[in-house]
Structure formats: structure tokens, C-alpha cells
């Protein structure tokens, strides 16, 4: 159903220009839609940025918003996908007291089993990094929470699509026109 609320991953290819964040987020803001996560990075094409935005809205709203995003002069192309259509990951960092690493056997097991990676260790704290799906990150958080977490931060989702997005062809068509 078009009006059912669903989680969508929005992928946007844009020129790398100042101010686009405002322009794109304003499209969500004016419809009072909460952005669950947003990520901006370089893409596979030089000088082209790629945005990954996660929102929970109806597909009908999603289509209209994609139209309004694509309409922005510096947006090359925008897509939306469901979880099934993408490969997605997010990562997180935990800062935890170093004593725990040596004193609590369970923590060592949790780290091993979760495939988390120790980024750094010093006398006071160690930093644990974990990439994966949101559920995996959340599970690790729940497991570590009882021991005391000094700091926790999670990134936004990044995703690639199973289907091709044909941005290069689009840009080449322009260059040769």
C-alpha cells in the first residue's frame, strides 16, 4: 500500500557544493519529516557527492520528495530503495574503561562473538568499533551496557544498491551533448 509507513534509503548524487545540505534537508523539513540518519561522502565519480538518507514515510510521500529533490539544480539523480534492494551498513564506536577488558571475561567473549574490533587501548580506556546492520549494533550496545559505557556513537547508514544507478552514463550523455 502506498500510504503504509516504510523505511526507505534515499541515495542522491549531487555536485559537491556548499549549501546543498540545507537545500535537501529543507525538503524533508517542510513536510515535517524526521530524518533518521544522513550521510554525505564522495562517490565513485570524482567531484560527485553521494548522500544516503534514511526516513520512515509512505511510498507516496517518498515519490513526491524524490521528485522535489531531483528538481534541485545541483542534484544529478535521486533514488529510493527498500532494505531488500540495498546492501547497507552502519558503524559505531564504544569507549569503555580499560580495567573491564582485563577483569571481565564476558566482555572479551562479547567482542569476539560480535566481530567487533578494538581500535585502541590505553591505561584508561579502550575503543571498540563495530560495523554491521543496525540490529547488530544495537545488540552489541545492549550487551555492553551493563558494564558501563563511557561514550557511544553510531554513524548513519551507508548503502549501495543491488541495481545499477547509471550516473556515469547520465553524465557522459551530458558531456557529449
Amino acid at each position, binding site marked *: 500500500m502506498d500510504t503504509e509507513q516504510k523505511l526507505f534509503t534515499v541515495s542522491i548524487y*549531487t*555536485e559537491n557544493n*556548499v*549549501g546543498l545540505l*540545507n*537545500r535537501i534537508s*529543507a525538503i524533508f523539513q*517542510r513536510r515535517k519529516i524526521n530524518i533518521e540518519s544522513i550521510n554525505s561522502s564522495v562517490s*565513485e*565519480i*570524482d*567531484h560527485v557527492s553521494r548522500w544516503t538518507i534514511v526516513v520512515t514515510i509512505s511510498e507516496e510521500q517518498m*515519490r*513526491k520528495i524524490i*521528485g*522535489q529533490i*531531483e*528538481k534541485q*539544480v*545541483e*542534484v*544529478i539523480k535521486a533514488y529510493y530503495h527498500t532494505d531488500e534492494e540495498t546492501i547497507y551498513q552502519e558503524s559505531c564506536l564504544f569507549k569503555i574503561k580499560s580495567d573491564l577488558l582485563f577483569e571481565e571475561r564476558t566482555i572479551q567473549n562479547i567482542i569476539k562473538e560480535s566481530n567487533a574490533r578494538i581500535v585502541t587501548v590505553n591505561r584508561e580506556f579502550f575503543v571498540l568499533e563495530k560495523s554491521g546492520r543496525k540490529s547488530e549494533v544495537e545488540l552489541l550496545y545492549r550487551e555492553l551496557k551493563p558494564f558501563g559505557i563511557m561514550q557511544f556513537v553510531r554513524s548513519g547508514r551507508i548503502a549501495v544498491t543491488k541495481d545499477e544507478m547509471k*550516473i*556515469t552514463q547520465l*553524465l*557522459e550523455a*551530458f*558531456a557529449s*551533448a
Partner: protein
Amino acid sequence: MESQVIQKNHQEIVSKPERISGSEAVVRCLLAEGVDVLYGYPGGAIMPVYDELYKYQKQIHHVLVRHEQGATHAAQGYARISGKVGVAIVTSGPGATNLITGIADAQIDSTPLVCITGQVGSHLLGSDAFQETDIVGISTPVTKWNHQITKASEIPEVMAKAFYIAKSGRPGPVLIDITKDAQFEEFDFEYKKCLGIRSYTPTPKSDNSSIEKAAKIINKAQKPLIVWGQGVILGQAEEEFTAVIEKAGIPSAWTILGASAIPSSHPLNVGMVGMHGNYAPNKLTNECDVLIAIGMRFDDRVTGNLATYAKQAKIIHFEIDPAEVNKNVKADVAVLGDAKETLSKLLVLLNSNSHPKWHQQFKDLYQIEYDAIIKNDLYPTKDGLTMGEVLKEINVQSKGNAAIVSDVGQHQMIACRYANFNKSKSNITSGGLGTMGFALPAAIGAKMAAPNREVVAVIGDGGYQMTIQELGTIFQTQVPVKIVVLNNNFLGMVRQWQQLFFDKRYASTEMTNPNFVQIAEGYSIKAKQVNKREDLASSVREMMAHDGPYFLEVCVEKEANVFPMIPTGASVSEIRLS
């Protein structure tokens, strides 16, 4: 494998390199884009450009408005009557923020504007410097594009892009913010016109199969109805549009911004749709079997309740902006592209038709509206002047050749309903944003862009006082606009709603007005007040014949209402005659 594509806009070289300042470059860019008039207000952060405007004053006419909002509306009036890009130039801070209403108006009504704002020196950005404001941030949601320039060398390319973006595809406002140091800096100036931007497709490619599908449906239709909007005018598709409706014999109704694309007197012109539109096209929207929307966006003031809007009809939507398709009304067939191109392709596929029975339905409903409303609006027998009879008198005196610039409210609805238009681009009004204060400055811009046309501003007493200071601009430039204020001493449309929906609680809608004639005379503008019906015709005649600006105040009935009316949230078929 993804390969690298070098970012490069399509350009056309216009001038050879020359070492000049950024501020001179701004003026040279304007000249290269064919700008002959700009509307603005100087101030600290834009002074270097004004210094160049002083040097170039023979080539480019700067009109000093009395408030920056007036600059945007004047530029809008200029753009709407000419189809060219209107230009406004102001300083930073309050100068820039005062543009916002006009920019928002231009954005929602698809008017091509380039607004240039001065900005504090780049070393001061973000420091809360004197007259610093983040105008790029502020204007982002209401501009088609905006950009801040901090180096002189960016000026030519950014200015070229600004004009290209403002004018191409679905037009809109662009804002360029230029720091003061970039204005002073010298560089090797070279101008190349922008011919394309890789991330921007102004006009989507039309696809023949959708046009064929549309033609098939139209050819089979028994009761087709066309609703056209400003897309026909912006696409300069008036001829193609006329050919289509004449060949297929389709009754055609207009949105406010579409008005004047074909003459008011055209036999297939069945009037205006929407809240205060005509009875027949509104009612029959819910009876037609095919609704063909051309260059319009199904605004809520046009559709009324969407759940009951043309549900029985197949919808065909001709549209340049893909984001408008299926936004409000789901289209059975969407024809993307420029109206001029798609309509000429459609024309050859259409069968000749005339639909006489269907036309008769429009005529019958028109007669009902005429007897209930139009007759009393245009030929009142009771005391008290009506807004309608003033418009009728303007029609008579101008022979339908005037461009009517209206403000917002009751008088606007009356002007749109009753003004006769012979020529396209003649109805200049604030449609989407509903900006009171639009008309007076917009009329200045319109008259300057089309000096050979009669330009009559029709304004209410409320909206007039929102930008009344532009009388100063008229005084200084002597631009011969005709100003008609329809004075009912009320914010009439709000009062009408209070009467109908708020049990006549007239909260803050009655106005104690000044002596408008004296105010106009203070600016040495010839002025007159009319109270009696017997003086109306001669006064309008005198106004039209007057060589120079003229102010005419018509004291109309205080508590008259505009009908027909579709109450908010009601269906188009529930349109009320009283």
C-alpha cells in the same frame, strides 16, 4: 567500471579576457545578458557595484525603489509581462532579507528573477558583522538556486548560470550573494553564456507514446475539459494551444496565472476555475470524462477537496516539471515536456471535433451565473459602486488591451473574473503566495518592460498600503502607470470569510484609511476620488487618457462579497452562488 566525468558546463564565449574589478564584472555580466533595467536599493555591502552602475548608467537603467520588497515585485512585473529575467539588486542584511517575500512569490509563481545581494567581506563571514545575514541560508527554500561568491573570478560563471537557471525550464528566482572583497578584487574578466549544466535538466524529453495515448483518449472523449495554467504562457505555446482547442473543440478553462493566454472573448474560453472561478467550469470539472491539464499544478485553490475532484474523469497532465506530476492529482497519462513542443505534436494526432451538446452545458450554467451574480456585479441597479463595474469600465476604456496588475483579495478575484484580455501576459497578479502589496511595484516593472502597453494596477485599500511607498518610485521615474484603488475600508476577503464562517465577527478587518488622494498628490501624481456611479466612466476615461501616472480611488460598497465561491475543503461541484 565507473569512469571519471569532468564537470563542465556548456558555454558560449561572449567576450575576451580583460582585467577589471569584480563589481564592474557584475555590471558587464548584466549587460551581456541583455539586462536594460534593474530595481534596487544601495547600501554598504553593495556600494562597489553601485559605483560601477553610476559609470554605466547610459547602458543600464537602475530604478531606485523605496523598499527592497518593491524591487523584487517590480522585477516580477517586468518578467511577467515580457518573459525576460527581472533583476533586483540590494545590499546585505536587511536589504537582503527584505527581498524574501518577493522571492518566495516568484518561486511559487515560476517567475524568472536574478537577485543580487551584497555581503560583508569574506573575512567577516559568520562573525555577526554589521549588516551580515546568512541570506543564502535564508533564501534556500524559496529559490530555484542560490550561491555565494567570495572571489571575483567566480562572478562570470556564476552570473551566467544564474540567468540560465532563472529562465530555463520551469522558471524561478535565483539569488547571488557577493562579498564586498570579491566586488573590489581585480581579475581577468571573460564572459561565457551558460548553455547547460550537467546536474540540471530544465526540460524533460517528451515521449511520443504518452502523446499518442493522450490523443487517443481525447479523440474518444465525449465531454473533454481543458484546464490550462501559466505553463502555456511561460512556454510561449499560446498559438499551439489555440490550435489544439480549436481543432478538438474542447471547452477550456484557466487558472489565475493562465489567464490571458487566449483572449477572454474566445468562444472556447469557458472562464476561470477555482475558489472564485466561474460556475460552469467548476461544476463541470466533476462531469467531464477527460480532464486535460496543461501547464498547471492542481493548486488547492483550484481543486477544492481532492477526494471529490474529477474522480469520474481520466486525467491527462501536460507538465514541464516532473515533480508536479501525481503530486496532487494522479494522472492517467502524464506528458512531460515543454508545452510548445508537446502541444504541436498532439495537434497532428487530434481529430476535429465540436462537442455541441457539451458546450451547451457550459452555456446553460453560465446563464445561471450571469443571472445570479455577473449581472449584478457589472450592471448594478442598487446604490453603491461594485468592484465589477469598475473593471467593466476599464475594459471599455482600454478595449481589453490593458495589462491588469492586481494585488490580493476580493478586488483580485473580481479583476481576474471580469478583466477582458486580448493579449497574452496581461494578467499580472500574485497567485500562489497571495502577496498583498504586490501590485503597485509590479505595475512599475510591467510598465517599464512594456512602455507601449497600458498598465493598470487594480489594488485594494489594504494591499495598497503595504507598499504605498513605491509612489515615490513612480514620482521619481514618472513611469505612467494607472493606479485604481478599490476602497471598501475593509480587508474585504477576510471580512467576507468572517461573515460567512465566523458569524460576522469582524476581527481587525475594518480600516480607517488616510486621504489617498492627498497622499498621491503629495507625490505630484494626478489623483481623483469617485463616489458616484455617474462619475465612474468619465473618471476612468480621464485616467486612461492622462499622459503620466494617475491615481484613481473608487469608493465601493463596504460589505460586498465575491461569488461564486467554493468554501475551503468543499468539492468544486459544491460551488456556491450566494
